[in-house]
């Protein structure tokens, strides 16, 4: 009962936050120096026998619905959004939701696969680093992880492309299919697609592994220094039992929360990675929509991202109460 009350309270609070986030995003989008309408008007005005730029501007501003002020414009957007109508994308000349559902698939699968790898690699590495704290192994793992975390994504991708695409020639530089894709049989088409996703997924794993690894390491260290681990050792349990049964089990609680928090991120796409590899995912399209000043699409994508972040936090908190009986919601 108490938990339910808490969840309801959190959801209501999240809605308030979401409202203001959307308002701020809308304001910023309206104030951007790139204006989609201006570009269109300028292009149309250069055509022979056309109306002047000013006339086109006046006409287009009204037809795109930008003749209203920022606040009233926002409420118009909000009112439609609440009815599930996010409008048509200016850039892609299609309904926003339709465009979104077209490009979310590849983003989701890329994120999901890289997340599996991230967890499979980061947890053992984190445990290893914690068990050998301050050793050469620990430093090697930690420094590599921090390097991958802190290198700007575009730089890391450039390095990877240099090594794997140019020097070794294993993969294509960009795109999701090869030039002779159409001539392949279905099995080889699948392999071709898979090969094009190797490097993007590798990149996603590299940039995300560090934070999880360090999270595991910190939590593991805290547990390993606890008295009950000393108790377990004093009991004469084998080292693997001490680590797996006593230490790791207690590390799992914060990890479950981390997992809950990152689940919604699966739908967020990877802006840099998708753009750098020209993968037609949600990150790639939203980047192009934003740089073109496509307000409906950008509004949808960014509000959706904010919703995912809020959802992640909420999920993490609820999971925490579920997995740890000691946490009482108060």
């Amino acid at each position: 009962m108490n938990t339910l009350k808490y969840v309801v309270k959190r959801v209501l609070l999240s809605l308030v936050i979401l409202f203001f986030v959307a308002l701020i995003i809308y304001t910023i989008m309206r104030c951007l120096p790139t204006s989609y309408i201006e570009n269109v008007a300028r292009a149309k005005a250069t055509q022979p026998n056309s109306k002047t730029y000013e006339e086109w501007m006046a006409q287009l501003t009204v037809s795109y619905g930008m003749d209203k002020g920022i606040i009233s414009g926002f409420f118009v957007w909000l009112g439609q959004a609440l009815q599930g109508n996010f409008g048509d994308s200016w850039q892609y000349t299609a309904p926003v939701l339709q465009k979104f559902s077209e490009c979310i698939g590849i983003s989701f699968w890329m994120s999901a696969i890289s997340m599996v790898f991230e967890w499979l690699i980061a947890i053992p590495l984190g445990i290893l680093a914690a068990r050998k704290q301050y050793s050469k192994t620990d430093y090697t793992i930690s420094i590599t992880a921090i390097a991958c975390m802190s290198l700007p994504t575009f730089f890391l991708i450039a390095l990877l492309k240099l090594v794997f695409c140019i020097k070794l020639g294993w993969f294509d530089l960009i795109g999701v299919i090869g030039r002779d894709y159409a001539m392949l049989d279905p099995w080889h088409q699948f392999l071709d697609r898979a090969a094009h996703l190797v490097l993007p997924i590798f990149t996603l794993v590299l940039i995300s592994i560090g934070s999880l690894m360090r999270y595991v390491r910190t939590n593991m260290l805290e547990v390993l220094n606890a008295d009950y681990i000393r108790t377990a050792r004093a009991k004469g349990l084998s080292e693997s039992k001490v680590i797996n049964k006593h230490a790791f089990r207690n590390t799992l609680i914060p990890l479950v929360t981390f997992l809950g928090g990152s689940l919604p991120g699966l739908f967020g796409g990877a802006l840099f990675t998708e753009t750098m590899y020209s993968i037609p995912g949600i990150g790639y399209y939203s980047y192009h929509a934003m740089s073109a000043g496509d307000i409906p699409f950008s509004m949808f994508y960014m509000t959706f991202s904010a919703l995912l972040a809020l959802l992640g936090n909420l999920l993490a908190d609820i999971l925490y109460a579920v997995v740890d009986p000691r946490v009482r919601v108060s």
Partner: protein
Amino acid sequence: MSDLKEKLRIDNDFVPIEPDDKYILQVNALKKYFPVKGGIISHTVGYVKAVDGITFNLKRGSCMGLVGESGCGKTTVGRTILRLEDDKTGGQVLFEGREVYDLSPKEMRALRPKMQIIFQDPFSSLSPRMPVSEIIGEAVREHGLVSKDEFDDYIDHIMDECGLQPFHKDRYPHEFSGGQRQRICIARALALNPDFIVCDEPVSALDVSIQAQIINLLKDLQNEHDLTYLFISHDLSVVEHISDTVGVMYLGSLVEYGDTADIFRNPLHPYTQALFSAIPVPDPTVKMNRIVLEGSIPSPVNPPKGCKFHTRCRNCMACCKEVAPEQKEIEPGHFVTCHLYDDVKSVSET
């Protein structure tokens, strides 16, 4: 540079002792230093001399109290004896005649049930994700101490002995009070049928009324199971109550060691005298002659030269600042490490 080298040199000269059947535990010149890391490449720049040459023997079925102010290395002594530290820095630890640190991991695991520990803080020494029956029974199963059919009865029996109810079995540690948790810790140690238990300040985290219960429980269990205790505490009245012998530690060294009665009746070392003068007497009419120690405890990284206590000793002499005193047996079984007794003939010499 040579200065640093000198600082990092570990003096490990000691006369090895032979195993003696009389004693369950023999500790000889035991040292445990912790490296102090510093500099950019985090190399060792010094040592915390937590335990700096400690010698004592423990008879089977006896209880030795280990007292001293906080930070003097009492806990490290207990942990080092049980090989809960990775290695010792020097000296010997013979448990039932065998050097504990020479055992292979397999032999060590087989020995673990025989030597157990009860930690100070019952709130952190129990795994929060395990029910009580699992905490107590896990190692019993692991070491195959009782058969499967008897397992449940055995756990019930142990819990009953430690004053826990059978319905407590499925609860988690956070559902218990401090006193009950400490009972779980004791049950956990006892379930392995040990010969020797290090009690590392088992009551200092509990309030006074519970302290007495736990102390009496430990005493009863000792009589029933013929246990040997190393009882670490800073509470002198508790130590007087439970111990047969007492060791007084100061800055990693044992300054005085002997029968509880002898030490409390006739403390010889100036530090022991100061410590004992601070025991509160539950009588407002008694005028206390407290010996107040000047200054604070020196850093164990740079302990004073000569006798480590000389900076705070009211009987400090010239030789105390230069030469470290040797442990000397003044009365039978009563050892003291102090220059005041240089002229007194050792019992072993006469």
